[in-house]
C-alpha cells in the first residue's frame, strides 16, 4: 500500500489508497496542514486605534477636569487669565488679553507692544480667560451633571423596567403609559420645563443656582428610554428556560429579578448607558446654551459656546468653537466606547 508523502497537493483527487489509509487504524496520521505554514492567524479587529484614542481622550478629560486646580499644563494665574476657584471677575490684566486667538492660528490683530498676539492652545475669551483652562472646567460640570443623571436614570429606569417586564399586568400598563407620555414630549422642551419648574423663583434671582434641578430634569429625560430597554430585555429573559428553572427551584421574584435576569441585562445596559451619557452631555450643553444650567461663573461648555456667539460674527471664531470642539470630541469618544462595549458583549453572546 503506497502512502502519500506529506500533505496532498491542492486539487489532488482522493484516490483509493487515501481511503485505505483512512480505514487503516494503524496508518500514520498524515497532517493535512503543512506544519511549516504559520499556525497563528492574525485576526484584524475593527477600530482598535479609535478605541484607544477614545479611551485616552476620556482619561485625559476626566483627569484634567478633576485635577484642574493643580495640573501643570493648565493655566492657573488668577490675575491674568484664570477663572479657577475664586477668580471670577476679570481683572485689568485679563482685559488686556481679551479675545486672543490660539497660538497656532496663523494671523494676528496687530496687538499693542509688549502683549502677545496669540495665546495658548485655545486662545482667550472676551474676558481674557484662558479657553483651554475654562474648557476643562466646563468638562467637569458637564461630566458631573451627565454622570449623575445617567446613574440615577439607570437605577430608576432599570428598576421600573424590570418590574414592568417581569410582573406585567397592571404595573406594566401604568409604567408603559408613563414612559409613552414622557417619550412623546420633545425632550429639550421637557427639560426646560423641569428646570424652570424646579428652580424656585425666589432663589433663581440669587447668585447660586443649585445643580440638582438640571440633574433631576436630565434624569427624567433618561428614564423612559432606559425603562423601555430594560423592560424589553426582561420580558425576553423572563421566558428563558433558566429563569423558569430558577423558579421551579423555588426562587423568589426578587431573587429571579436581581440574580438571574439583571446580570444578563447589564452588558446591554452598559453600552446603552454610554450612549445615554453622550446624549445627556449634549442635552446639558443645550440647557446651558439657553442659560438654564448651573449659574455663572461656573463654566459650562454650553454657556461658553453661547457667550462666543457674539464675537463669532466679528471674526473671533475660537471662543465658541474651542469648547464646542471639546464637547464634540468627548461625545464622540463616549459613543465610540459604547460601540466597543456593545461589540465586546456581542462576541460573548455568540460564544455561549
Amino acid at each position, binding site marked *: 500500500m503506497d502512502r502519500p508523502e506529506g500533505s496532498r497537493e491542492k486539487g489532488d483527487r482522493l484516490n483509493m489508497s487515501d481511503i485505505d489509509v483512512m480505514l487503516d487504524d494503524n496508518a500514520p496520521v498524515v497532517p493535512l496542514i503543512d506544519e511549516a505554514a504559520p499556525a497563528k492567524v492574525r485576526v484584524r479587529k475593527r477600530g482598535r486605534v479609535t478605541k484607544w484614542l477614545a479611551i485616552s481622550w476620556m482619561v485625559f478629560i476626566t483627569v484634567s477636569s478633576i485635577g484642574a486646580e493643580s495640573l501643570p499644563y493648565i493655566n492657573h494665574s488668577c490675575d491674568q487669565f484664570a477663572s479657577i476657584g475664586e477668580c471670577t471677575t476679570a481683572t485689568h490684566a485679563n482685559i488686556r488679553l481679551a479675545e486672543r486667538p490660539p497660538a497656532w492660528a496663523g494671523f494676528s490683530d496687530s496687538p499693542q507692544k509688549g502683549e502677545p498676539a496669540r495665546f495658548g492652545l485655545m486662545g482667550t475669551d472676551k474676558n481674557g480667560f484662558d479657553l483651554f483652562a475654562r474648557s476643562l472646567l466646563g468638562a467637569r460640570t458637564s461630566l458631573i451633571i451627565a454622570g449623575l443623571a445617567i446613574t440615577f436614570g439607570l437605577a430608576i429606569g432599570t428598576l421600573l423596567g424590570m418590574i414592568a417586564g417581569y410582573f406585567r399586568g397592571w404595573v406594566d400598563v401604568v409604567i408603559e403609559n408613563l414612559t409613552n407620555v414622557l417619550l412623546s414630549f420633545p425632550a429639550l422642551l421637557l427639560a426646560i420645563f423641569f428646570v424652570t419648574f424646579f428652580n424656585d423663583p425666589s432663589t433663581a434671582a440669587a447668585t447660586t443656582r443649585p445643580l440638582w434641578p438640571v440633574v433631576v430634569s436630565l434624569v427624567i429625560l433618561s428614564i423612559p428610554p432606559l425603562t423601555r430597554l430594560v423592560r424589553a430585555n426582561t420580558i425576553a429573559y423572563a421566558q428563558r428556560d433558566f429563569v423558569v428553572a430558577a423558579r*421551579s427551584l423555588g426562587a423568589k421574584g426578587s431573587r429571579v429579578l436581581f440574580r438571574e435576569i439583571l446580570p444578563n441585562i447589564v452588558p446591554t445596559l452598559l453600552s446603552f448607558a454610554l450612549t445615554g451619557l453622550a446624549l445627556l452631555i449634549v442635552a446639558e450643553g443645550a440647557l446651558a446654551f439657553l442659560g438654564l444650567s448651573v449659574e455663572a461663573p461656573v463654566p459650562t461648555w454650553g454657556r461658553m459656546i453661547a457667550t462666543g456667539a457674539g464675537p463669532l460674527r466679528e471674526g473671533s471664531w475660537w471662543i465658541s468653537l474651542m469648547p464646542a470642539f471639546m464637547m464634540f470630541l468627548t461625545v464622540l469618544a463616549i459613543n465610540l466606547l459604547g460601540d466597543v462595549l456593545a461589540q465586546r458583549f456581542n462576541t460573548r453572546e455568540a460564544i455561549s
Partner: protein
Amino acid sequence: MNSRVQATSRQTDGPLLKVTDLKTHFRTERGLVRSVDGVSFSLERGRALGIVGESGSGKTVLSRSIMGLLPGRNTERSGSVVFEGEEIIGLSLKDRRKIWGREMSMIFQDPMTSLNPVMRVGKQITEGLKIHLGMDNENARATALRLLHDVRIPEPEKRLNQYAFELSGGMRQRVMIAIALACGPTVLFADEPTTALDVTVQAQILELIGEQRRDRNMSVILVTHDLGVVAGHTDEIAVMYGGKLVEKAPTRTLFANMKMPYTEALLRSIPNIEDPSHTRLNVIAGRPPDLVNPPKGCRFSPRCEYVQPKCIAEEPPLLTAEHADHVYACWYPVGSPVYREKRAQLDKAKKSAGMSQVGAG
C-alpha cells in the same frame, strides 16, 4: 458528610402524587386552548412514569401544570393534584415555592438555555442549598461537589468555577440534573431531558436519571415524544393525545399489548433497523388536533387508519383492558375484530401500492 439529602418521609397512605381530572386551559384571542383536558393518573414513590405524545399534545403543559409553574394570567386550572396527601392546586405562590426544589423539581429540554449564562455553575447549584436547606458556604460547596460527582462530571472542582458556555451539552444537562437533585426532591419532572442531546449522550443521561431515582427513592415523570426513550427507563407509560390521556399501562404491557391505534402508530413510526434502505417511513398522516376546536368524537379519529363512524360521533371513555392497570380510550382497540378487518385491507392496499411502485421504477 452525607450529601444525599434523603427525601422527607412524611408519606401518608396512598400514592405519592395523585392527579385527578386535571384541566389546564389558556385563554387566547383565538379561543380557549384546552392544552390539558381532564387527565388523571397516580404515581407511587420511587416509580418512573413516562408521558409520551407528539408536539402539542399537552405533555409539557401537564408537567408544568402539576408543579404550578404556569403563569397565572389567562390560565384556567381545575381538577385536583394531591401530593403526599395534600391538595396542591390553589396553593399560594409562597406555599408552592416551598414545594418547588425541595419536593418537586424539573429538568428542561435544552441545557443550552436552562443554565444562567452569566452565573458560575457552582453558584447555581449552591444557591438552592443555601436558601432551602440553610447550608453555609462550605457545606453547600462540599454538597455541590458531591452532586457533580454523583452526576459523573469529571473534575468537579474545576467545573464549580466555570460558566455554562464552557461545558458541553451533555455536561450542561448533568449540571442541570445536579441542580434539580440538589435539595432532594421526591418527584423529578424531566421534560424531554435528552431531546437536545447527541444520541450517545442521551443514553448516558437517561441512565443517570434512572440511577439517581433508585439511589434516592425518588419518583420520576419523564416527558418525551420518543417511545424509545421511555421504553427502558420507566415503569409505566401514559400516552397523551390532544390534551387527553389516551392509553396508560405498565411499560411492558403497553409494548406487548397496546390497545390504542395512536400508540401503535407512534411505535410504527420508529424506523426499523432491519428494513431495507429507502423503506418509506411510517408517518402519522395529518397534524395534531387544534386544541381550540378539538374533534367532536375521538380526538385521534381524523388521523386514525381504522376510523369508524362511531369514532367521529362519540368520544370514547377510558376503558380498562385485561389488566386493571391498563386503560385506553378507543372504541375499536388494536386486536378487536373491526381493527383486524381494517388492518387486513390496509396491508393489502399497501402491498399492491408497493408492487406498482416497483413496476414504475
